[in-house]
């Protein structure tokens, strides 16, 4: 009983915040008319979903959303885990105390500010890169789509890696110190300790993080893809994701039917992917599956 008492606030919160609005999914299948009300509006089947697949943008935005997310998941885990291990190796020195806030700081900066930091670098007239690094042959970054996969990846890594490493640092901190001592007694080098103790014991955390990321694989960091390229139309080929497409498409129509349809599509595909990924994990390594 005290167990449920403790859970109650969180459960109620989740119910109100996550489950109650779910009945609104049927809005995705309606032609909303405010005078008739949401219950009185006409059913229109899957018509609200059509705009997502109407143009070849559908392919571009799906490719971008999936591609970037896969890249971000892989790079994010490799870099965050490496960073966590490195930070752990530094130990509790003064350097670590200074370094930790610094690597987490980028995560606190709003994407709008990040976009302008980016603009200060990439601006073709006065930008740092064109002025200092490429003074002879300036590139007009905001009209060349081919550079943006790199730019966005760098910005994303810069922003989230430090923060992402916290959870791994915590896991490493939770590893029994005796394991390392025993290894040292047996003469294992630091590299060997990382390879045979830290990494295997981090595996469950990594799997959970991957599964959680996969559930969001159809969602993208809106700020990153909308603000950082300064909403430049020429760059859509490499910066358009489902979120930015939906935002752009519906900003003017403000059609909640189509918005709900897009949101439902993202959620359903994300849900299916989590189930599939979890099944795969269950097959490969049953102990580490999520459910």
């Amino acid at each position: 009983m005290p167990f449920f008492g403790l859970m109650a606030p969180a459960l109620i919160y989740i119910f109100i915040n996550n489950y109650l609005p779910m009945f609104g999914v049927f809005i995705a299948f309606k032609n909303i008319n405010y005078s008739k009300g949401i219950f009185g509006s006409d059913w229109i089947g899957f018509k609200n979903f059509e705009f997502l697949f109407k143009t070849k943008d559908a392919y571009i935005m799906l490719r971008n959303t999936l591609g970037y997310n896969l890249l971000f998941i892989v790079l994010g885990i490799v870099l965050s885990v490496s960073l966590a291990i490195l930070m752990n190796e530094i130990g509790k020195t003064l350097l670590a105390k200074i370094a930790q806030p610094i690597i987490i700081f980028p995560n606190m900066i709003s994407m709008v500010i990040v976009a302008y930091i980016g603009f200060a670098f990439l601006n073709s007239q006065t930008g740092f890169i064109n002025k200092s690094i490429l003074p002879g042959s300036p590139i007009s970054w905001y009209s060349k789509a081919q550079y943006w996969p790199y730019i966005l990846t760098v910005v994303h890594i810069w922003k989230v890696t430090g923060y992402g490493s916290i959870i791994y640092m915590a896991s490493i901190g939770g590893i029994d110190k005796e394991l390392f001592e025993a290894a040292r007694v047996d003469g294992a080098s630091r590299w060997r300790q990382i390879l045979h103790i830290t990494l295997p014991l981090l595996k469950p955390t990594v799997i959970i993080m991957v599964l959680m990321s996969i559930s969001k694989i159809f969602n993208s960091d809106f700020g990153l893809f909308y603000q950082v390229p300064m909403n430049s139309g020429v760059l859509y080929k490499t910066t358009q994701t489902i979120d930015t497409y939906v935002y752009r498409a519906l900003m003017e129509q403000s059609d909640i039917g189509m918005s709900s349809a897009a949101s439902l599509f993202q959620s359903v595909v994300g849900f299916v992917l989590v189930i599939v990924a979890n099944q795969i994990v269950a097959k490969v390594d049953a102990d580490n599956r999520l459910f």
Partner: protein
Amino acid sequence: MKRRFVSTLLAFVMAMVFVVSQTGMASGEGVSTVALYYPVYFNMPSEAGIANVEAALDKYLEPKIGVHIKLHPLDMFQYTDQINLVLSAGDEQVDIFMPMAGLSNYVNKGQIIAMDDYVKELAPAIELMGEEFMKSSYINGSLYSLPVYKANTFQWYFMCRKDLADETGIDLSTIKSVQDLEPLLEAVHEKHPEIYPLGPTNPNDFQLVAAADGPECGVDIDYLGDNPDTCTGAVIGNTDKVENFYASDAFREMVERAYSWNQKGLLMPEASVSPDIASDLIAAGRCFGSIIGYGYPMSDAMANSGTYGDYTMTWAEPATDLMQSSAFNNQFSIGYNSADPAAAARLMNLLWTDEYVVNTIIYGLEGEDYVIPEGFDPINSMPDYPEGMAAETVPYQARISCGCFGNNFLMYGFMGDVKDFGMNLINNSRKSQYLGFLYDGSNCKTEITAVNTVIKQYYISLVTGELNPADILPVFIEELEDAGINDIIADKQAQLDAWLAARK
């Protein structure tokens, strides 16, 4: 994004509950509260200032029409987004607002109500403007809005620094079209390569389309209720045939001009992503001029009112507008959840006919928000700010809302020369043959959304001259066709044909 949709939905659910619980208490007698959502530029009035103005207006409105007013000023540049959010959430009563994203959009979604039952309340306002001016307010024969009474086409001005213009020796009165600006811009560029000859009036917009689609371009372009950057089909040259504006010669000419000006260094580079605007750039000494449209006569006083810093400004008059349905996009309607539409209509009528109400909402309260200087001429001049105050510091002012509020010509300073100039534009602007035709896009929602996404992708880079139209236009047009623009055009054509047939 997902969370925003979800919270919108949640708000919506709560709103439904709210609306249901509210309907019992619609005020049958006595005083009704009417919520007015209107746009304000630059400086938002303070809470206290709004409360004082409301109190003063209530004293006047209660005995006169039985209304308590609730003022909701919204930032002009976010007006459409914000009003759409308020309407979608539905928990706030919206009695009077501006359907700026297109009247038929809101009618289709059932967000505004027909005012046919309230024509009696609105009669003085309707008579004042005349049926001719109200053509774009009817959908399927029902009245849905009152258009803001003002000069609804622009005189386009090229505002520029006088010292640099004089230096070139070019007579500004010889400039009769946007194309005529080229020698002037080139001359300035040659002498002062360090400053931008033409800056963007608004972020990402040099107005090289809006100022070049009027009678001066030699052919009448009617966007049929759309804007140049959302056009899903236009009639070009009174042919009764709807066509793809972006595939037209007229559009190609505009973007080729932009590209060639960009190549010659006459435009601010990277305007498609830069947030800079010309007035700031000019004030900072980095720009020569910009193209801007106004519905009032330009004068030395107006040109040098401080927007452009310390430089003395002069101007040319390169273009006028074709009056078409979109000229009436500034209009006011009654919201679907209005508690007492009759009261809303009574208040609306006063926004067009009552000098006190209009000026109080625009200028605030005498003594607190403005003072009447000695020898004040309300016909031609605006009142002053109180001693030591300015636009940013007075508790309440909505002065720059004047262009989009009720009857423009009842405001202090707008009753004389401005009115004459505005009436001249209203009466003598070249009028489109298709004035009053409003396209109902509900059959092509999917296509319209898809087409607009394609337009967003290419339009800004083309009109800021950053992409070579020779390479990009064919791609742009092909993608528009893939997105279904021809379906929309066919649908529009059918509706236009029906409309034309009904008029004969």
